[in-house]
């Protein structure tokens, strides 16, 4: 170990393991995590013959698919050996472990993070029985397509149509224009063979707004795109080049009526539309992903500050005082300012994410009983927290890169790649300005109704208004 780094460790005033346990949620959780990591790295899937930085775009994708499959195979084996729940090993594919193996993103991420959760949240019990087992086994690979080339977060503006044909009991999916092409979903390009598609539902001549449909994209045997399906990759991006983001267009593609996810709204055989108790229920998947995102950015920030802080203990530069040797750059207060705020931000976001996760679970449990009262509050919170944590995290990673000087610019520092992953989160699942405006809508409403009791997170608005009046 570098002597400067060792000296830092010797001078630490608290028990590092105690803090690790606290972050993990207890010594047992730390042990479980370490055991899981040990098992994964023992397999050697993370070791690259050639650094992936020097591979072509196509080779990077092929490597990402290979590793994702090896990871899944290992996960299934461990699950059988240990008789452990799937959720234990889902952790392997997301978070730190997943990104360790699949450095620039995985083409299977959306299968686990959005396709399966959407089936769980939006499919009927019968639909879940049919689809979820196949999805868990990776007999089918799915993704989730909402955003269109010409339409982003404003989902009411989506153009893809799903028109019900009562004569054949089928929906006809169609992309009327180029701007209606689905654009962005991870895994869509060459990996997934099924997809949850958000489309405007038309039945009995009337539009009922956007609804989710499960659509087969590729033949299960040959993997060739099915007739009427126009699918491909969107091209190289700033980061996340292993995620295989794709585009998708429909030319009057027919799917059975049962392929509409009907947990909330339904279309009966004769074409009658049965409304959902609340149109807001379709926002469930997006809220779930935003809550998960806050967790994810904590991991990226923790990585970045770990790299920059250790480097700052090793690196020596300039002269702080005359006739003294070059000090560790950690001695400079400007460097401490860059690093320590990053460290405290990780803790702030981690605790905030845990708090938001509890609230998400409480509100979704209330939803099951038909109580929608706190849904707007959760929606507003998840929007602004997603926006602020991702933008702060991107700024933090960039600050860490700058704090490592030219060495931070090297891909081998892993800071540029981490920046690519974090800054992507500012855009996906709702661009940040749009997210902040959604929260603003809720806040303005809260201000106007401040005479009535307000939910806990905006109760201060009521107090402020009362104070202003007095």
């Amino acid at each position, binding site marked *: 170990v570098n002597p400067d*780094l060792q000296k830092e460790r010797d001078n630490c005033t608290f028990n590092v393991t105690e803090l690790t346990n606290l972050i993990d949620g207890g010594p047992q959780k730390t042990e479980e995590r370490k055991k899981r990591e040990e098992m994964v790295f023992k397999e050697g899937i993370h070791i690259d013959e050639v650094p992936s930085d020097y591979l072509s775009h196509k080779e990077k994708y092929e490597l990402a698919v290979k590793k994702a499959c090896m990871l899944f195979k290992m996960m299934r084996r461990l699950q059988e050996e240990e008789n452990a729940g799937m959720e234990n090993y889902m952790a392997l594919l997301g978070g*730190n472990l997943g990104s*360790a193996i699949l450095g620039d993103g995985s083409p299977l991420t959306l299968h686990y993070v959005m396709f399966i959760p959407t089936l769980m949240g939006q499919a009927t019990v019968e639909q879940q029985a049919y689809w979820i087992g196949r999805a868990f086994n990776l007999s089918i690979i799915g993704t989730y397509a909402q955003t269109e080339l010409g339409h982003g977060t404003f989902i009411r503006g989506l153009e893809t149509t799903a028109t019900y044909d009562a004569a054949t009991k089928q929906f006809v999916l169609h992309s009327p224009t180029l701007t209606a092409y689905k654009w962005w979903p991870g895994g869509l390009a060459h990996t997934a063979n099924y997809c949850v598609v958000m489309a405007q539902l038309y039945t009995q001549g009337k539009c009922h707004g956007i609804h989710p449909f499960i659509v087969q994209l590729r033949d299960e045997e040959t993997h060739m795109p099915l007739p009427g399906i126009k699918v491909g990759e969107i091209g190289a991006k700033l980061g996340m080049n292993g995620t295989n983001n794709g585009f998708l267009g429909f030319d009057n593609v027919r799917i059975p009526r049962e392929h509409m996810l009907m947990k909330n709204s339904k279309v009966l055989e004769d074409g009658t539309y049965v409304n959902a108790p609340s149109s807001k229920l379709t926002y469930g998947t997006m809220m779930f992903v935003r809550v998960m995102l806050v967790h994810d950015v904590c991991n990226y920030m923790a990585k970045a500050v770990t790299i920059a802080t250790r480097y700052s203990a090793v690196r020596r530069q300039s002269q702080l005082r005359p006739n003294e040797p070059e000090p560790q750059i950690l001695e400079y207060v400007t460097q401490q300012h860059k690093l320590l705020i990053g460290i405290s931000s990780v803790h702030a976001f981690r605790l905030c994410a845990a708090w938001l996760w509890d609230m998400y679970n409480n509100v979704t449990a209330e939803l099951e009983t038909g109580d929608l009262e706190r849904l707007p509050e959760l929606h507003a919170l998840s929007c602004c927290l997603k926006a602020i944590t991702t933008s702060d995290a991107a700024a933090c990673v960039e600050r860490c890169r700058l704090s490592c000087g030219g060495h931070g610019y090297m891909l081998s520092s*892993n800071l540029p790649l981490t920046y690519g992953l974090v800054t992507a989160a500012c855009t996906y699942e709702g661009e940040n300005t749009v997210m902040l405006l959604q929260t603003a809508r809720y806040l303005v409403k809260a201000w106007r109704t401040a005479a009535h009791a307000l939910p806990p997170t905006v109760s201060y608005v009521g107090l402020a208004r009362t104070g202003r009046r007095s």
Partner: protein
Amino acid sequence: PPWDNSLQGIISGFHTLAAGKIGLCVSQIEKRQASGMSYEDAWNMTSVQLTAASEAHCRAIILSSYYTETEKMSRGVSAPLRLVLTQLVELYVVYWALQCLGDLLRFTSISERNIEELQNWYEDLLVKLRPNAVGLVDAFDIRDEILRSALGAYDGRAYERLMEEAMKSPLNKEPVNESFHKYLKPFMQGKL
């Protein structure tokens, strides 16, 4: 209310700031509507302020939840760790107060003297936390295989690892690249 330069006081200041910004947005929208603008146009014209109000609301939420959750969490930990966790919360709260000085001056009764105290508080915290910087990141307990960084490995062999990684460049596989013979040499010898 008078400014209170404590953690709770700063957090309360952020709530006042957020409420002030929301209130201002509402009155701006109403003024614009009163001057004949549609609600939608008034909203659009106010949207820069609206995003700032949202951000202020979010900052207040993060600061207050970080503070209260750390208070709860710290009860069961050793005194040295509790001290460090408290210093981290203080650092975060004071940092954001200093970042949002303009807004705090506008919406609360913070004074020049309070600001000077905050600046000194922040710099003192940096000095206090500095000896624990490496310990704090070690506590994230991120394995080298996960970190995948030449600069951040646990053993601190940053320079050796940078060199090892440099040697993996395909250009270093041969001493002379074929582009020299194909392009540079004829050019350099005036044969082009």
